[in-house]
């Protein structure tokens, strides 16, 4: 059985002065029935890559096959089988939820009842409300419903939960999970690591138009060699003079870095690293002002591969 998505050496350069190389050689394989996450900071090339797969953007070079079909020759057939939700679509505020879905349903040869799509996103009681009257989370669910109404085999969701409250995010996660459990394939982009860890069977970490790593979230984290992170802060006269990688030489420490006000050590064995850290702090006459530990996350994976933090604005763009 063919792959749901296969990209070979995709590139996209937006014309301009200077031209922007948004995607610089991306290979991607998404197996059917899985949820694939594209992770990365703003400007990393996530949206451009997903829009090439959606047939909305033409790649500068490389091939993208969707459900075994080529955009060059079978665009209409592909569109019948995919559902998409763009990063930012403002559906007409004057139309009701049902009217909006009825409109989108009319574009597809086959699909579900508009009412059924509304039920899938649990908006039955809002079916006859105008979009204008909906909250941000409800509007996002309508957007996902417009993607579902054609009964797609493949769902593209570009940052489906950005800017939503925690409850709305969980609502969308449930919708995505249900779609996948029914046999559908999902490609989603996100810059929330917890979202990717929770939803995705596999993630690709993007930065500056390239893929840094592809694997299951668990494998990516365990490949760090350090599944724990010690987070601490110190104060004292010599604190300001400490190097960024303070603590790197301690036993069991894989890497050291600063994240906003905190210092982070990725460690293999916290029970060995922490006593050594405390001793070092004492020797330097510093004062420990906070200390916590946590499990390593995809965020740490990103930092490990990209050398900078995920939340650094625009850090992923090629300038």
């Amino acid at each position, binding site marked *: 059985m063919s792959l749901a998505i296969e990209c070979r050496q995709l590139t996209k350069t937006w014309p301009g002065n200077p031209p922007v190389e948004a995607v610089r050689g991306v290979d991607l394989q998404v197996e059917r029935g899985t949820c694939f996450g594209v992770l990365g900071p703003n400007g990393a090339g996530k949206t451009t890559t997903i829009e090439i797969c959606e047939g909305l953007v033409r790649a500068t070079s490389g091939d993208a096959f969707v459900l075994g079909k080529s955009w060059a020759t079978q665009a209409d057939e592909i569109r019948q089988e995919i559902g998409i939700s763009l990063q930012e*679509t403002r559906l*007409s505020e004057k*139309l009701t939820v049902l009217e909006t879905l009825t409109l989108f349903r009319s574009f597809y040869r086959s699909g579900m009842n508009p009412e059924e799509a509304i039920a899938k996103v649990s908006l039955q009681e809002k079916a006859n409300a105008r979009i204008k009257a909906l909250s941000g989370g409800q509007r996002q669910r309508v957007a996902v419903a417009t993607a579902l109404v054609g009964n797609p085999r493949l769902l593209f969701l570009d940052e489906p939960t950005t800017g939503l409250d925690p409850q709305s995010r969980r609502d969308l996660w449930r919708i995505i999970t249900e779609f996948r459990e029914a046999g559908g394939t999902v490609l989603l982009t996100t810059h929330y690591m917890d979202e990717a860890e929770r939803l995705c069977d596999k993630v690709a970490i993007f930065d500056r138009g390239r893929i840094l790593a592809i694997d299951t979230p668990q494998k990516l984290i365990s490949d760090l060699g350090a599944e724990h992170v010690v987070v601490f802060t110190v104060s004292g006269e010599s604190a300001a003079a400490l190097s960024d990688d303070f603590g790197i030489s301690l036993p069991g420490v894989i890497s050291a870095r600063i994240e906003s006000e905190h210092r982070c050590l990725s460690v293999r064995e916290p029970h060995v690293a922490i006593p050594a850290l405390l001793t070092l702090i004492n020797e330097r006459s510093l004062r420990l002002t906070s200390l916590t530990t946590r499990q390593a996350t995809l965020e740490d994976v990103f930092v490990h591969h990209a050398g900078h933090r995920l939340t650094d604005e625009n850090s992923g763009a090629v300038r």
Partner: protein
Amino acid sequence: MSSSWKMHPVTQLFLARFREFIRQPEAVFWSYVFPLVMMIALGLAFRSEPMEAISIIVQDGDGAELLADSLRSSKSLIVSSGTELQCRQQLRAGQSELIVVAETDNSAAGYRFVFDPTRPGSVHARDVVNDVLQRAAGRQDPVKTTDVAIAEPGSRYIDFLVPGLIGMGLMGGGVWGVGYAIVDMRIRQVLKRFMGTPMKKPHFVAAMMFSRMIFMIPEIIVVLLVSRFLFGVINHGSYLNVMLLIVLGAFEFAGIGLLIASRAKTLEAVSGLMNLAMVPMWIGSGIFFSAKRFPEFVQPVIGLLPLTPVISALRQVMQEGAGTVAILPEIAVIATWGVLTFAVAIRIFRWE
């Protein structure tokens, strides 16, 4: 409702446009009430009335009393008198059309007319006063003439204005209605979202055009009905021809709106382009006054503006009762504009 999703995409796209339109009361108001207000205001301002009496002034001096008395005997003149300075002031202010001065320095009595020859009212006043004075002095007309008054519907300003306003409504509705709606959908990324579905582009364009034609019909009916009952404007031609011109005009201006909006990314940009396209037609295409008033050398250009043939053909049908064959040249120009603008617009259209 349960099976309405089985409808054709064009019907669904049309319904969506229609709902968006009627759920914006201010848009409905401006589309339907504005042309009506304009027609009523202009119809009242330029209503045909018997010509008012002419105001003239007699300059003080020898013989002025006698002169003023003889002029007052005419019912079509309102006569006042004043010093030379007052006379000049009245003339400048437009309160009087003509200064009449009695000249007594020669042996024979004579009169001097002081007026601005570029003011039609003054020229008319001079002729009337001259006539009155010559007859009072005993002139006999060598040829007998008779006046017959007529007021034939179809020849008044309002009869001329109504087809112009219908044309203006077609233009404004098409260019604004289609252009603005499309740029708005582009900004909201709705066009891009549609591109991610199997929706066919010609379906979308057809729905935009079809909705424009449907929105136009009530506007035209209201204008025709109100002008009929308020001003007695009668359509001397066939309503089928009027309908034909309205459908073609709606098609033509929907195409122009589509072309103007085909690449614009902001509402500011599209507003500028729409005004750029419409201003020459507001002035040149004969909405309020005949386009024939422009110099001969610009006539070919004016005739090819998209609005000119619409208004010209509507006037021929409504005022003169022209048949379909007589308006074929206009129909050809309208149809060419419509087809060309649609073809170019679809080619260069930006969906995101």
